[in-house]
């Protein structure tokens, strides 16, 4: 073919168009948030902590509560509107047997207790992280965030934003099921 270089702009354009098309299709299938950050804690154990129970002051928990069975760790706060939207679905999950630990993040303790009394309590244990330092160790940069933690206390997945039926069934539940199977073996 003579003068092949004349086709360079066309080829470049087609490659770009293909990249954009792939990204568009991916966005339709799984609307991702451009500000979402990868968690660097995937494959690592839950950081060490000593935190009080949300309701019973003085009663403390440590990282060993994440040993023994697969758990969800849900980071929430009363100042977070999305958490309100997500709460009913968490109640449903808890009712269906999913074990969830709540981390009340940089919140007013009194308000948080009232919130659980009013909206129901999906959490096995509610940790109170008033100064957000466990949140910092987990790389939390907002609420809600949900971590999937396996029976060995290793973080397998982080989900930023609310948990709802759609993303639970498509993304989170398969990982949770896998963790349950791993725990059996």
């Amino acid at each position, binding site marked *: 073919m003579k003068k092949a*270089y004349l086709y360079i702009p066309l080829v470049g354009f087609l490659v770009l168009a293909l990249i954009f098309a792939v990204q568009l299709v991916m966005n339709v299938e799984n609307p991702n948030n451009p500000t979402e*950050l990868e968690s*660097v804690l995937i494959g690592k154990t839950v950081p060490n902590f000593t935190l009080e129970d949300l309701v019973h002051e003085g009663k403390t928990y440590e990282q060993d509560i994440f040993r023994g069975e697969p758990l969800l760790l849900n980071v929430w706060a009363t100042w977070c509107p999305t958490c309100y939207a997500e709460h009913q679905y968490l109640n449903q999950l808890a009712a269906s047997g999913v074990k969830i630990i709540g981390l009340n993040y*940089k919140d007013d303790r009194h308000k948080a207790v009232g919130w659980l009394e009013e909206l129901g309590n999906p959490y096995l244990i509610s940790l109170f992280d008033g100064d957000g330092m466990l949140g910092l160790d987990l790389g939390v940069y907002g609420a809600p965030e949900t971590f999937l933690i396996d029976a060995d206390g290793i973080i397998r997945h982080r989900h930023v934003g609310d948990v709802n039926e759609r993303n639970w069934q498509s993304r989170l539940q398969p990982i949770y099921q896998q963790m349950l199977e791993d725990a059996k073996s």
Partner: protein
Amino acid sequence: MNRFNGLKAMCVAVFVMWLGHPLAWANIDAYTFESVDQERTFHELNKTLRCPKCQNNSIGDSNAELAKDLRQKVYEMLQEGQSEDEIVDYMVARYGNFVTYEPPLTPATLILWLAPALAILIGVASVLYRSRGSRLAAAEIAEEEKQRLERLLKDTDEDSAP
């Protein structure tokens, strides 16, 4: 008299608003430092660490709750006598390379360093290639022209023959 008071109040209000303007007023947290060096390091880190929440703000610029926490953490770590690198490593271990404005050289970020060099190389290569190509083309044309010239000359020779 009343009007004058109103004007004065307005002037004061405008002045206060101007003072409170975010550009005129970076974050002022009351931190006390043990030394000038420590204070300089603190401000340095505030500029070079990036806020994961208000992305594209440094933690010094951002008013997000998280940025306040991170500033507080930086301050505490400095008080404990930790070095700048240790603090950056601590943040990277939690938030990934996103939190620093100076990404390390990893396979994933290699392209950042290579892209400019590659662009120059490709440019130079294409210029060289095309100049060679055009020389060849010129040579070809010259060849054709020569033959035509010869033909023309022949023709004229024949025409001018009696």
